[in-house]
């Protein structure tokens, strides 16, 4: 149960999946666990849906840990799920949001990679699919979306950590999300959580051309980061993927933005580089807590700016 669960620790996939069941059981009128498909190696992929009723209401999507080695992302996803459940009914703003909107949270966006990073290679980033004709496995699931697919900032080499894969949405883990988002048809915001380097980004990554709503997204991002920084003073940069890091094609938020989901963002959580992907577990809760302030700020903006 959430009372005995240690949110300040890293956990295996089985433990997280089991904990999800406990969360659903504790909040039966708010949280459901829905299977959106299976991974390449046959693991179920579960999304937590926070809803107070109705079908296909306007919704906000949050996923964490599409790059498996970025462990603080998945840990933040777990903490966030618990926060949403426990704040509902006590936090007026979140409660009002959930009266009209749903939140979907995919804590383990790359289950095979996550397990592989726990059991075989802590530094594993990609999926685990086999690449015909190559000794190397896996596709970078954040180069696999149908948005400038195969363009700059993605590799054609299956051995590269940024290999884009044979075709757009070739990775079942990506396809599962694509199917859900398309079938739902009413997502207003799509937020993807990565680590590290402390950035809040918006489209585009595959081109350095400004998105149509760049100014608004920049403003929303800066407001969110201001909230985030207010807790522990963590400094974030805000900007488009291309301008703030580097050109990277085939990314998820570019695809969602082009699909019409205006409020598409990607986080890079702590740290600035002292530990990188090996962020100590004692930083999970501070990281998740500050991220929540930013997430909530974005969600409130989305709620108040329907389109």
């Amino acid at each position, binding site marked *: 149960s959430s009372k005995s669960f240690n949110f300040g620790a*890293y956990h295996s996939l089985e433990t997280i999946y089991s904990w999800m069941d406990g969360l659903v059981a504790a909040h039966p009128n708010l949280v459901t666990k829905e299977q959106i498909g299976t991974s390449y190696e046959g693991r179920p992929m579960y999304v937590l849906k926070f809803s107070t009723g109705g079908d296909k209401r306007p919704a906000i999507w949050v996923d964490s840990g599409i790059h498996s080695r970025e462990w603080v992302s998945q840990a933040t996803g777990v903490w966030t799920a618990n926060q949403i459940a426990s704040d509902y009914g006590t936090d007026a703003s979140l409660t009002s949001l959930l009266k009209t909107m749903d939140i979907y949270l995919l804590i383990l966006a790359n289950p095979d990679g996550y397990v592989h990073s726990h059991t*075989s290679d*802590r*530094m594993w980033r990609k999926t685990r699919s086999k690449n015909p004709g190559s000794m190397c496995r896996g596709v970078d699931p954040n180069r696999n979306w149908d948005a400038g697919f195969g363009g700059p900032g993605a590799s054609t080499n299956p051995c590269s950590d940024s290999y884009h894969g044979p075709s757009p949405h070739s990775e079942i883990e990506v396809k599962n999300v694509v199917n859900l988002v398309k079938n739902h048809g009413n997502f207003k915001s799509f937020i993807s959580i990565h680590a590290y*380097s402390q950035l809040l980004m918006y489209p585009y990554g595959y081109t350095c051309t400004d998105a149509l709503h760049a100014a608004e997204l920049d403003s929303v991002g800066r407001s969110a980061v201001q909230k985030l920084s207010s807790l522990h003073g963590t400094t974030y940069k805000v900007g488009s993927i291309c301008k703030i890091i580097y050109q990277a094609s085939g990314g998820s938020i570019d695809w969602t933005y082009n699909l019409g989901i205006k409020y598409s963002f990607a986080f890079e959580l702590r740290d600035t*580089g002292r530990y990188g*992907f*090996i962020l*100590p*577990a004692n930083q999970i809760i501070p990281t998740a807590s500050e991220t929540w302030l930013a997430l909530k700020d974005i969600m409130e903006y989305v709620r108040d700016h329907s389109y």
Partner: protein
Amino acid sequence: EKVFIGDQVIRVNVESEEQILLLRALEQDTYWDLDFWLHPVNTEVPVDIRVPSSSLYAVKDYLRAHNIQFSVMISNLQELLDEEKAEMEENNMSER
């Protein structure tokens, strides 16, 4: 299970476009089996590279030869991973 004994993560605070090009050349060289945690982009963003122990001398020599300043961010990656693993096992036991 893959181990990272003696692997280091080094940080380069890039000072010029020339250094970015040199680091990109390093990134494309597969011989040293480098894992770029943060890629060479511009002078405002640092570059973090996990360097296998077998390539440490060569990579550091390369950087020094090109007058690229660097610092060691993680001196032995496996030590940190061992600590992480021990902590996870301990947490797992205490939950039970």
